[in-house]
């Protein structure tokens, strides 16, 4: 680890990077002492806390917080599909079967997450419902809401993967379980989108959703993004690809704050 190089890199993008640390001298003194004690294993933790302090960010959410966030979304989805089935407008046959299958999975996710949170001695959130006042009266709009919920769910899980790295429940990797839910949400999203005669993946511009669902594909990193890890997918891969293909080939993350924003899922839950 070369802390000086990291700080040097920081200075390149943030001219007052050093000024952000409470005391430049104190930082290096502590680092030196840490190294002297041979406690190098603790260095990543120290540096993490240093950056958190320097940039005034809140601490990364705990595992139970992440799982409760996921559970909130699953409860919202489960209740939405329950309301959709109860509304009785889903055509019999393939559409009804698809909605029933998706509802079954959301219920299974609710059970799984609830039990996992309990096993970790946490308190699972409960009673989160889809706001009845926001529930659409017609089937077409109900499907549009389902698309918004599923595509948001995919983005939401993706946004929390980093917070589950290395986190275990007994011998089970919580990250892997989250990924296994995440890909199911993506399968749901693909099917709902095709039920609406949309592509199963998200193109550069998806303006087919009625208000208030427009912001689903926006965010700090919008779904129209074509640059991944600093590489422009349309121009820097040796072959020229269209912006539509580049945007569709990668789904983007949403942060917890973005998902819980009142213009997205946060505005639909009571």
């Amino acid at each position, binding site marked *: *680890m070369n802390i000086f190089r990291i700080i040097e890199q920081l200075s390149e993008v943030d001219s007052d990077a050093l000024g952000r640390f409470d005391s430049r001298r104190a930082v290096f003194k502590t680092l030196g002492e840490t190294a002297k004690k041979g406690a190098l294993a603790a260095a990543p933790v120290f540096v993490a806390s240093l950056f*958190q302090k320097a940039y005034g960010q809140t601490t990364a959410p705990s595992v139970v917080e992440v799982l409760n966030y996921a559970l909130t979304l699953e409860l919202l989805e489960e209740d939405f599909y329950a309301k959709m089935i109860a509304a009785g407008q889903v055509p019999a046959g393939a559409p009804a079967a698809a909605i029933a299958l998706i509802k079954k999975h959301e219920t299974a996710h609710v059970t799984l997450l609830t039990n996992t949170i309990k096993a970790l001695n946490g308190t699972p959130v409960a009673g989160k419902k889809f706001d009845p006042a926001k529930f659409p009266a017609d089937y077409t709009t109900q499907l549009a809401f389902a698309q918004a919920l599923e595509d948001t769910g995919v983005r939401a899980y993706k946004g929390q*993967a980093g917070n589950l*790295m290395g986190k275990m429940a007994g011998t089970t990797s919580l990250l892997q379980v989250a990924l296994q839910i*995440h*890909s199911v949400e*993506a399968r749901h*999203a693909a099917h709902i989108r095709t039920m609406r005669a949309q592509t199963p993946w998200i193109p550069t511009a998806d303006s087919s959703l009625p208000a208030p669902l427009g912001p689903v594909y926006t965010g700090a990193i919008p779904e129209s993004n074509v640059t*991944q890890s600093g590489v422009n997918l349309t121009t820097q891969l040796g072959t020229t690809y269209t912006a539509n293909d580049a945007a569709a080939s990668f789904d983007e993350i949403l942060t917890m704050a973005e998902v819980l924003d009142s213009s997205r899922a946060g505005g639909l839950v009571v």
Partner: protein
Amino acid sequence: MSKIITSGGDEAEFAKPLYVPIKRRSFFMYAGATAGATALLLSGCDDDDDDTVSTPGMVNLGSGDVGVLNYAYALEQLEAAFYARVKASPASDFSNTEKDYFNQVAAHEAIHRDFLKAAINRDAPGKIIADLNPNFDSIDFTKRTAVLNAARTFEDLGVQAYNGAGKYLKTAAYLVIAGQIVSVEARHAAYVRDLISNGSFADDSIVDAATGLDKALEPVDVIAAAQGFIKEKLDATNVGK
């Protein structure tokens, strides 16, 4: 040719972090999380201890994060080659919708392949695996059903591979990338399943009915399943280790 790829010979380029340049806003996002700080630490490391020993006749995917990236790159090479072939000569009984599906997915998989190639060459110069030669002898590309079934196998396998390998990544930024790709693979898988049989996008044969979980497979098991479609012998025993 991409600037990223051709810059591989410049020693100074190697020392740069994953995100070049670090975007101010995205840096702030990373700085907030312990995982992000760990990624920064990795990018600040001079040494790379992912050296692998190759056995003659085998393609060793390697260990550590680059092993996982090579593993993903191997699978994306396979998928991209498959779809390129379907796109070049589609089965005569494909509908226009199906041809359109294969054309779009061919582009997605080619982008995944080319992106991983660029990222590995940039972040782990000299560690990328060679171009693989696919062996699609078992697939009858003239028959719609055979092609759809093969596509379903590749897409479901891809989902299971990413789901099982995510936990082996140590760098948060790579995990985000893997997550961004796997959900698109799941979208492909769902759609091709629906082409075969509408409603099978996430049926009980692929998603566990009790837990609602997609499957996850370990790298050695995925490679065992994919090996029949690749001429070179792949060794995934150290992926993630």
